């Protein structure tokens, strides 16, 4: 195996509650010991429901949040060891695309200025060549070069997302965190933007950390997938087999919720009872135990936290699988 581009070890992120009256309130345990790797050119899908901590992992990987614990290595260097200036220089190699296409763009700047900013601050082209670069980037993401002087509100959601992608590409990254990049778009537009991301991956050899809650989309783009529940990874392995043959009860429930084009082949949907436990007071045992429907579920599930173990071609965190 090649050396990983991104290597996350035992990442922990806790948030202290804000405000004068919450000083003694327990911390919110958003991420509780997540390890993952992304190889150059590889796409890792990170799946889970709202509040599972998947976006926090994405932001911590880019060091937009300072982790409470654990290490993040990018191209072999621990991001925590870098000086602020070194970190800013490193940021050129890792980029982000957000869910909210309009909110991702500064409303007071032309899209040309937004795309050019990264090229300018990292000195990637002489000033005279920057407009031509911006034009080329706009064309690469399927937009007209004359749009350079327009403002974000003049575009549709899909176009805005393409602008956000062009802005990320401008600094020539090796790795992009895509944080739910298509979930705010119309379904017809989703496919176009997804295809664009696939094309760009091919052309530039990009690696993606693709965060999503929609397994159908992850199946299309990801090589491997990691399923998160309440701040931990419960199952991870090759995207194809994990999604076609899920082992962890939570993954099984997620997969059963994906609509199948053929209604006759749609399996029985597993409807989970109750809510996930509060991330400020997680249960001592398996985080999924309170909602688990596994036939062998027992007292051990309530007392002992299961660790990821190798099961055939993937890792599963369940006492009763493998």
């Amino acid at each position, binding site marked *: 195996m090649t050396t990983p581009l991104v290597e996350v070890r035992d990442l922990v992120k806790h948030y202290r509650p804000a405000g004068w009256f919450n000083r003694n309130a327990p911390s919110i345990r958003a991420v509780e010991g997540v390890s993952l790797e992304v190889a150059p050119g590889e796409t890792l899908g990170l799946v889970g429901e709202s509040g599972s901590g998947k976006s926090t992992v994405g932001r911590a990987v*880019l060091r937009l949040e300072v982790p409470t614990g654990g290490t993040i290595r990018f191209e072999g260097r621990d991001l925590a060891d870098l000086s602020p200036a070194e970190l800013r220089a490193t940021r050129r190699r890792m980029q*982000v695309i957000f869910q909210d296409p309009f909110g991702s763009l500064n409303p007071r700047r032309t899209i040309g200025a937004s795309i050019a900013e990264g090229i300018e601050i990292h000195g990637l082209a002489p000033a005279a060549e920057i407009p031509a670069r911006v034009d080329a980037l706009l064309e690469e993401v399927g937009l007209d070069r004359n749009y350079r002087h327009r403002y974000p509100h003049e575009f549709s959601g899909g176009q805005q997302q393409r602008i956000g992608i062009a802005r*990320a590409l401008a600094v020539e990254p090796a790795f992009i965190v895509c944080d739910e990049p298509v979930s705010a778009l119309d379904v017809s537009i989703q496919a176009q933007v997804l295809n664009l991301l696939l094309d760009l991956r091919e052309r530039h050899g990009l690696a993606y950390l693709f965060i999503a809650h929609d397994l159908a989309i992850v199946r299309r783009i990801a090589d491997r997938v990691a399923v998160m529940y309440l701040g931990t990874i419960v199952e991870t392995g090759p995207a194809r087999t994990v999604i076609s043959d899920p082992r962890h009860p939570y993954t099984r429930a997620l997969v059963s919720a994906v609509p199948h084009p053929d209604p006759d082949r749609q399996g029985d949907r597993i409807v989970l009872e109750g809510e996930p436990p509060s991330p400020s007071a997680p249960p001592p045992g398996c985080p999924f135990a309170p909602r688990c429907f596994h036939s062998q579920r027992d007292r051990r599930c309530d007392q002992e936290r299961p660790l990821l173990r190798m099961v055939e071609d993937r890792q599963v965190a369940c006492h009763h699988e493998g």
Partner: protein
Amino acid sequence: MSHWAVRRTAEAVALTILGAVLLVALVHLLPGDPLNAIIGERALDPATKALLREQWGVDHPLPVVLGDFMVGITRGDLGISYGEQRPVATLLAERLGPTLLLGSLTLLITFTVGMALGLWSALRPRSRRAQLLGTLTLITYTLPSFVIGLVLVWVFAVSWQWLPSAGLDDPLLPIDATGGAVLLDRIRHLILPLATMVLATIAVPIRQQRSAALATVAAPWVMAARARGVSPWRIAWQHVWRPAVTPVITLLGLWLPLLVSGAVFVEYVFAWPGVGALIAEATGTRDIPVVIGAGVLLVAAVQLGSLIADLLYRVATPGTVES
């Protein structure tokens, strides 16, 4: 843009004229006889009274009063003050200098320092110092300007005797004093009223800028800028402040008339010979030409303020199309 500017300016002029007409009409319709207010209890023979009434146009019908006023204003003539027996335009011109001096410095400091502090506290909302600033602004916002003024006078002028408490300059200053000495004297007289005005007003732009910047600082485009490696200064200026400046521009437009109206309480407390104090005196003595003259000046200032704010707004929000 230029087409818009012409139309917007014409609108401001029309509104100023309308405002002036309404002002003259309203004052004319007020009950009470200004003559009595000025002459007081002194006995005057009926012939003299009638002469004064005619001379001051007290009994003219409204259309005649309005006509006279409009004709006068085109020649820069705002009438004669009852009390001072001097042209109102001259009186206003005398008072405008000190008011402009105090008002322009107040707005300059209040808005630049206010925006900087508001932005600073939005960038680190959970820090102790930002929270302390929030408490302090709440206190100065709650205190009326004359209370702040009196406290400052008590501390700096009465107890410690560091600074003069009243007027524009020292009447005992030698006539042959050098330019530097005159300037220093003027600055010493300016400090307390200026400090009072700034303290009384700065809480609003700080809080306005803070809340607007708190919204933009959490925006995804700011996180994307950090992810691109943009420097903290550039993020603060380009990505947090610029999209959050419009509410402050609106506030500036509302406050620009302060430049010519003066702050009545502060000018009164510090015996600052400005327009605000003049309005207070004229209202007390029913000096109607002065009240109207100052009122028209204010109407024009309000219009000019909102015109400038609209222009700034268009500069600050490029690309927005007019509906």
